[in-house]
């Protein structure tokens, strides 16, 4: 009796594990299977202009907006994380940390709406790189902040004490003593934030809108394409080729994101080993 109950319990657990593992595999398999006819080099050299079946405009747009997000949210997020970890204390610190975490709970569609109303309309930037970058930056800021915070906090206390005992200034302590061991975790946080930005759709629909052309120069009044947009818009089109393009774009997006996630993880693992070294 006792063992039958146990067996049923573990059987259900095994099914649960399978349910966790199966979808990711099936998603990748589906993407590869449907996208197969389009998977050749010309996919990357063709835009969606005039019914073209390619991801060139999508990739260029995604890379541009990704770079922009790194430029905007990167420094702000790292400095904010530094402030929370190293400068703030007591109640202000707890509140700043709490609200930064809560910001991560804002639905991305709401961020898209705010971007549309304020950036595209009220500020008159139109559908543009600038609007898209600012909206996406709001979205990923909390991740950069959190990872930076954790990075600084995981530096062993003995190093801080050593720096303090030598009378080093705060700036020198941060730059020369805390930053080297914290840097890998900060970088992996940025990489993961970049992965999140690459996969977002909703905020871009209302700030970048869409263009079949490659991105043009100009920060404002320049709608542009992006990979998730290729997936979204092509999937809704009736032709078989467009349909395949949606899956091909999805595959490219997923591969990019998976590479970023793995890179972030490798950096984190190296960082852990390094921090373990710091404590003799």
């Amino acid at each position, binding site marked *: 009796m*006792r*063992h039958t109950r*146990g067996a049923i319990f*573990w059987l259900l*657990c*095994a099914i*649960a*594990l399978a*349910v*966790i593992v199966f979808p*990711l595999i*099936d*998603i990748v398999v*589906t993407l590869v299977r*449907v996208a197969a006819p389009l998977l050749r080099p010309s996919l990357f050299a063709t835009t969606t202009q005039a019914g073209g079946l390619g991801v060139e405009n999508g990739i260029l747009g995604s890379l541009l907006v990704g770079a922009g997000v790194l430029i905007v949210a990167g420094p*702000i997020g790292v*400095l*904010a994380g*530094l402030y929370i970890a190293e*400068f*703030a204390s007591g109640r202000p610190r707890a509140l*700043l940390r*709490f*609200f930064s*975490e*809560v*910001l991560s*709970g*804002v*639905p991305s*569609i*709401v961020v898209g*709406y*705010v971007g549309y*109303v304020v950036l595209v309309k009220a500020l008159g930037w139109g559908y543009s790189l600038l609007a898209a970058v600012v909206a996406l930056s709001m979205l990923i*800021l909390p991740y950069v902040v959190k990872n930076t915070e954790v990075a600084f*906090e995981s530096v062993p*206390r003995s190093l*801080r*004490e050593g720096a303090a005992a030598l009378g080093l*200034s705060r*700036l*020198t302590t*941060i730059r020369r003593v805390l930053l080297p061991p914290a840097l890998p975790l900060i970088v992996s946080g940025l990489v993961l934030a970049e992965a*999140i930005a690459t*996969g*977002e*759709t*909703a905020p871009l*629909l*209302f700030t970048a809108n869409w263009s079949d052309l490659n991105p043009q120069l100009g920060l404002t009044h320049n709608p542009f394409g992006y990979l998730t947009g290729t*997936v979204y818009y092509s*999937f809704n089109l009736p032709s078989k080729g467009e349909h395949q393009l*949606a899956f091909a774009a*999805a595959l490219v997006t*997923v591969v990019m*994101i*998976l590479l970023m*996630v*793995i890179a972030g993880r490798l950096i984190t693992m190296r960082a852990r080993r390094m921090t373990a070294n710091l404590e003799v």
Partner: protein
Amino acid sequence: MLVRGRARGISPSPAPAGATAGRESVTRWGDRVTHAVAAVAGMVPLGALAFIVIVMVVSAIPAILFSGTGFFTGSVFSLGSVYAPPIHHHGLTAPFGASYGALPLILGTFVTSLIAIGLAVPISVGGVLMLSEWLPRRAQSFLSLFLELLAGIPSVVFGIWGVYTFGPFMAAHVYPLLTGLGTVIPWLKGPVGAGQGLLTASLVLAIMVVPIVAATTRELVRRVPTLAREGALALGMTRHETAKVVTIPYVRTGILAAALLGWGRALGETMAVLFIIGNVLNGYPQNLYLSANTLSATIAGTLDGALTDSTGTDISALAEIGLVLLVISLVTNFAGRLVIRRVSDQALPVGRGV
């Protein structure tokens, strides 16, 4: 021999004192600037949050005045027609035939997200227990990578997978079996449709929030003291009983927090739902298999149309939807973080120093 110049006594500073103090004032200045710049950056997340809330509230005011409580009780959400003269109501203008009743959307959001989280929690806990009790350590770190990858799959990709593969499969092979339960749960009676609808959306949402819940659960399970578990095993309990008596009670509060966070994510999820749920703006589906709509999918699906309305009330109605969504998301997020704070204060060592 080791000490060079030991006869010197206390070594004098190699530089004059004035230079040291000058340097001191420079570093003090550098410290202040760093502090100030970091403080400004530190306020940005809080500022962004406040900014989002204010923009949503202000944008929603016209629609709130226009529909009043009708927003929460009406069951027809229609942007109206811009090809007819606008109507006037409560001193506001709106397109002809406009009606902003969001009850079906609110219900759709709650139903999908609750089904999703209701499934994601047992799946996550079961999977993590299986892993931590039966599989080697290597497999565990592999799963955490796997969960990170699953979390990285974009919502829009889940959407096309749900429509193309998952939905049709479920409609063909699984939902017909579920209709057998129709006598117990009336909402599970047929017809099962083609796989786009409330239930498929809920199931895909469940898969999407599993990484959040499972990753947290894994952390919590790892923190269960080995001593407590070995104590139970030493009493002759089976692994199953140990899990029930020691592990699960130990992680229960943490899982509640994770569930709240996951629920918040499911509430706000847009693109996947937009694809899968079938987008019906008015009324209620007759069962769980058929099309419905949620708050977030409605914003994404109708913004284009709302933009053509010159009175601006349509776009404001979407803001009201967004505001409701924002409030629900923030409340669940708030609650989850408060709970997890309580748990981690118990579990983490206190007094982490400077």
